[in-house]
């Protein structure tokens, strides 16, 4: 699997309240949630994002509330992959569980700039940005199986 897209870059401790503010949690429809994605930190994100784009952030991305609406909104907005220095643990689980690819790579997250075009090869575990290649360790087989099935529930259903 390969992702290729333009980078939207954010800082440290991006919390789920700014990814999708609670005032919009009276719905669970991805198509509606994506209209408000990143609204409280980047009002232009929804206008600028294109299908396949990549989100890059600093440490502790997705901290705070456990709302799965956050990765759902990001995924529905068209983002193909999130690269961060580190992820908050509930967000990390949620992203994997709904089949949104995420990569923890402090080196890549620090080196990549906003607006750059980045390519990610999930099978090889490579991030290619601005002529530089960053390698990342593969997910453990257990998590690979969830990703292969397109999410946790499908993995359970298909045994």
């Amino acid at each position, binding site marked *: 699997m390969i992702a290729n897209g333009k980078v939207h870059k954010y800082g440290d401790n991006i919390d789920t*309240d700014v990814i999708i503010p609670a005032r919009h949690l009276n719905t669970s429809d991805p198509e509606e949630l994506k209209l408000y994605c990143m609204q409280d930190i980047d009002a232009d994100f929804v206008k600028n994002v294109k299908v396949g784009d990549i989100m890059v952030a600093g440490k*502790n991305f997705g901290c705070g509330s456990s709302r799965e609406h956050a990765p759902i909104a990001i995924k529905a907005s068209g983002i193909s992959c999130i690269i961060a220095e580190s992820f*908050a643990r509930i967000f990390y*689980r949620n992203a994997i569980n709904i089949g949104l690819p995420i990569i923890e790579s402090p080196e890549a997250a620090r080196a990549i700039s906003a607006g750059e075009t980045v390519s990610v090869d999930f099978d090889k575990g490579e991030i290619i940005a601005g002529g530089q290649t960053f390698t990342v360790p593969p997910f*453990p087989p257990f998590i690979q199986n969830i990703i292969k099935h397109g999410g946790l*529930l499908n993995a359970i259903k298909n045994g």
Partner: protein
Amino acid sequence: MTMTQKVLASHAGLDKVVAGQLIEANLDMVLGNDITAPVAINEMEKAGLNSVFSTTKISLVMDHFTPNKDIKAAEQCKKVREFARKHGIVNFFDVGEMGIEHALLPEKGIVKAGDCIIGADSHTCTYGALGAFSTGVGSTDMAAGMATGKAWFKVPGAIKFNLVGKFSENVSGKDLILHIIGKIGVDGALYKSMEFCGDGVANLTMDDRLCVANMAIEAGAKNGIFPVDEKTVAYMTKAGVTDYKVFTPDTDAEYDEEMTIDLAALKPTVSFPHLPENTKTLDEIGERIAIDQVVIGSCTNGWLSDLEVAAKVLNGKKVAKGMRCIIIPGTQQIYLDALRSGFIETFIEAGAVVSTPTCGPCLGGHTGILAAGERAVATTNRNFVGRMGHTESEVYLASPYVAANVALTGYLG
């Protein structure tokens, strides 16, 4: 093994686990609320998972946008209500019975020492105060948990907090946890357990412990956990619990870090906008910050003892002119106890308003939203940008003692 690792090993049917190991554990409780459960129900239905693993080990609490704030919120609650009815979910709590989930479940004896619990709410870590392994997850994990009674975990390492001494007057569990988060940062315990131990634990009330474990997530932790002692047993007995299990850490348990905290050295502490780690003690503030609203409540500080502290401060006095003081008991029982103790009368006479239990303003849901440029001092748990309303509003986190005093003067510091 640490205390957390022992609870996890026991629920995974293993003699031993080590940090970093991936395990599948049996769950004693799966929790969801009116925001997260509808997503889980949708996911279950989409995947064709049509049955639940237990009718007694699932709790559904309608607490965030209830009593329903708008039509969409009402539709979400309706979805959960119908699901609960269809599957015969015993622990379904609607308006009238519901409280803020993390205050309600311990009070009802639904969670207990030795349990392995997941909840689709980040503050599910609260139940670690009772000696349970309890952690927040998302809606898909909740759906899988409801269908199978199992969840996957990466076994966490731990930071050990050795508590010694006793709080000074007007210092509480809230000051302890804000102090810790200020010290280690909002990702200081990322992926780890926060294990509390030491002679000082005995000097913490159960409400203090519940408050401390509640905010473990604000340091990025997977869970916070306290040892079980006489106070824990008395609390659980009052809640009607008999079948609890006590796990103690091995004497040679390995910890990633250890930290000793002298409770007597702590002072009233405040988290400044916009991260819980931006802490200052009251005497470090050095300026007078005008405050528009005070909120006393939430799953962090909506306990009866919190209302008692606030009532003592407000008794016979008036909330400052122009100040809006909102007080929200954690559960119906706490509300009733506060009423019978005269606290509610004190609040109303002081010019505060008292709301039915709800998460309400804590997450910027309803019942106390801030306009641009407004500032609140709240006993809640998060002060992120826009958390209580407008992105240009500010939230300062503090204890009920500090918040009630701000309500009287209209100023912090």
